[in-house]
């Protein structure tokens, strides 16, 4: 709450300036300030399209302003330049059909290219010496939290994750219950997590840092609190963290079942994964959570805005 008040005061004072900030601050917007190759390629595509859009907007606005000013019905204009029977002109109509087709083509080509590129792990960047095998992390959402399972390292975290930089991460996304969407805007676009279905999303961080990640798809009462933090660090630091995590207690099935219950929970670390009992991304695991906790939705959390702030900032 203290943090809020400080921010509110700061911003209230700057309110008149905010328009200027808006114009100059674009490069600080998360999506346009990528921290990895996937977000980078998406930013490039967005910027490429924005130039086209700006040209279209400028042309239409200019034409519009010209017409509205020049052809307004002002006193004394008379019938000069007035032609009520002008009904069309095939030549000009062909031109303004062809131009949009060309623009759409120009936008389609890089879109399709990027779409196919995003299905593969990102190419290694200059800082990486050799192509590295992607690190596999199962990201499983449950109302209203995230489980991150590292099958190779045999660790599992709740509501935060660590990743090494300069190495592709292969997220295997699924949901235990309602449809969610894994989104780490600084690292790249999102993909849905569904029960009974497994999606693959490749992301990679090139810069070290702490990035916000969240569920972006509405899942009910705790949705706004279904966030996590991503710690991107060098491979040594990552290895150290893995070792540390491997010393944590093991996850028991009983404990996991309790964690699945709809509600909010703190960060947790375990030295084993839930994948040994259930993979929610398969048809067999699809009804696991709902069979356990189907009745729990009868109760409301009575979640207020203040509850969430505290939850997101208590650690560190």
């Amino acid at each position: 709450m203290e943090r809020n008040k400080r921010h509110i005061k700061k911003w209230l004072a700057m309110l008149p300036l905010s328009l200027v900030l808006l114009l100059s601050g674009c490069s600080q917007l998360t999506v346009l300030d990528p921290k990895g190759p996937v977000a980078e390629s998406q930013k490039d595509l967005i910027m490429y399209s924005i130039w086209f859009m700006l040209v279209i907007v400028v042309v239409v606005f200019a034409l519009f302003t010209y017409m509205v000013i020049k052809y307004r019905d002002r006193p004394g204009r008379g019938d000069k330049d007035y032609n009520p029977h002008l009904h069309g002109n095939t030549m000009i109509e062909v031109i303004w059909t062809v131009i949009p087709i060309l623009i759409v083509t120009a936008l389609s080509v890089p879109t399709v290219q990027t779409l196919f590129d995003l299905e593969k792990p990102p190419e290694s960047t200059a800082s990486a010496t050799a192509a590295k095998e992607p690190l596999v992390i199962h990201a499983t959402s449950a109302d209203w939290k995230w489980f991150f399972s590292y099958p190779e390292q045999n660790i599992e975290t709740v509501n935060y994750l660590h990743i090494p930089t300069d190495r592709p991460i292969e997220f295997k996304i699924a949901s235990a219950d309602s449809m969610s969407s894994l989104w780490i805007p600084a690292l790249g676009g999102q993909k849905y997590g569904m029960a009974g279905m497994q999606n693959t999303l490749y992301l990679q961080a090139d810069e070290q840092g702490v990035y916000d990640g969240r569920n972006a798809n509405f899942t009910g009462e705790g949705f706004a609190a279904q966030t996590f933090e991503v710690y991107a660090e060098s491979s040594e630091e990552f290895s150290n963290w893995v070792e540390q995590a491997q010393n944590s207690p093991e996850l028991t099935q009983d404990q996991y079942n309790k964690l699945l219950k709809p509600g909010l929970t703190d960060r947790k670390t375990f030295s084993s994964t839930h994948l040994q009992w259930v993979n929610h991304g398969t048809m067999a695991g699809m009804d696991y959570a709902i069979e356990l906790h189907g009745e729990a939705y009868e109760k409301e959390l009575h979640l207020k805005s203040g509850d969430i702030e505290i939850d997101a900032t208590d650690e560190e």
Partner: protein
Amino acid sequence: MQLDEFFVTGEPLIYAGMVSIVLVTAAIIFVLTYFKRWGWLWREWLTTVDHKKIGIMYILSALAMLFRGGMDALMMRVQLAFPGMDFLGSQHYNEIFTTHGTVMIIFMAMPFLIGLMNVIVPLQIGARDVAFPALNALSFWSFLFGALLFNISFVIGGSPDAGWTSYTPLAGAAMSPGPGQNFYLMGLQLSGIGTLATGINFMVTIIKMRAPGMKMFQMPIFTWSTLVTAFIIVFAFPILTVALALMTIDRVFGSQFFTLTGEGLPMMWANLFWMWGHPEVYIVILPAFGIFSEVIATFARKQLFGYKAMVWSMILIAGLSFLVWVHHFFTMGAGAFVNSVFSVSTMLIAVPTGVKIFNWLATLYKSKIQFTVANLWALAFIPSFVIGGVTGVMLGMAAADYQFHNSYFLVAHFHYVLIAGTVFACFAGLVYWYPKMFGHKLNERLGKISFWFFLIGFHVCFFPQYFVGLDGMPRRVFSIIPEWMPLNVISTVGAFGMGLGFAIFVYNIYYSYRYSEREKTGDSWDGRTLEWATPTPVPFYNFATVPHVNSHDAFIEMKEKGETTFDEEKVEPIHMPSNTGQPIIMMGIAGIASFGLVFEWMWMAIAGLIGLVVMMGVRSFDYDDGFHVEVDEIKRTERKARGL
């Protein structure tokens, strides 16, 4: 069931809502009783089959729904203005954004446009009513009872809270227990019946009942947009009907179409919903295009540029609208190839839409633009809609959409197209045709004040949302982080600007009713199409004699030749349909049956269904095929209306 489970308890805002509902209802009952107006209400309005009156009832209901949806919006904007706001809790916020979306699309935008179609389309094509007048009344009552059912949810039983898209499995019985979601299903189902019937009605009316000589490519452009919309309705709405029925069976009778258990297919709902939902957005935008075309041509004092291109681009848009539904869930993981196909088909819609924009601009070329309020709304549409359109193309680029999806960038986009497109068109159309409906114009000065408040408020509200979306703010969160605050504060200020604009608009209706000069001729704006050829107020049979049409600006030609719709020599008795109470009774019973299903009270649902079947029987054996208006009466009416 306990009484405190039936009524929603514990929220002061909802208690206030209950009190105001009771007060308004009591006031209406008192006024009707005191002035002895019950009989008048029944004879003139509740049993009417006159398309003009049905249209007016649609528009009034839509304005009420715009108020309700707007109040929802303002409450959301207050909650989102600052981090840590405790104005609305999560659950309450979720209910409000769900009802806001549903009310605005299903119970505001569509009825508003259908209302304008009802009033204007028969007049534009020289018809005396729609093809099936009693069915038309039934459409309206199904919409109204559906809307009432949906709107009462916030005081009785609890509002739906799974978003207007109602994605399963979240919206299923397990994760959304209670009657809330059933209100959504039954409210939409009931009003959907009416929309489908309206589609069929206007399709037949326009194809079969045009004035003699009026070829398809001579129809006024608003009529064309209505015809294309009618086709979309007839093809798209059955999908919604089936999807809603399947989810209802899931929730009420325990089947497993969209559930997580029993190998249900929750993602199938998203497909079915958007196979209807994407055409739906064209159902609310194409009539808007039609209205803008009429208003711009009239106040540019010039023929519409590229009429044929305008018509063909609407037909093309309608066709493409069925081929793009996947772009609502590019992120579901269908793969690069599927996403590529739907990406390209989505962007292709920009081509016919771009053609339309350029045609409107060309209509302004060598014109004489009059800045009436109706035209201000239409002109403001062009640049505003272009912003919404180009960002729509950006969203259509699937690889980039992974970053835009579910964010405020998307929220900003669809408000730019739906407000600058549909809402501006509703206002433009209402102001433009107001004198035809009510016999006086809306005050221009107040109209301009409300226009500027609304327009500036609109841009201030939604433009910043593109940026806060790019900063990673997802839609449907009830709480913001401090980094998103400045843009959200601006947004909230803009929302209140729009609210003020709407309030002035409504005040203008009252002010103009009191003080505006009454119309003396039927041709308020020196119009171009047949609706302006009728006297104001329009006689219930519309046209004493139906003119022969040779061009698409039929009334311009009539004025040049000195013709009117009252050719004394040619007056013949006119066949008109009788009023009937069957539609309101039938749909009232359907409303009761739906209410029973909402609470899963089977005795009520079954009784209602039996009543519905009985009413269908009554209707089938109704041999009243209308009456004839005699020549003397027509001549008397027309002479009086025209001051002859």
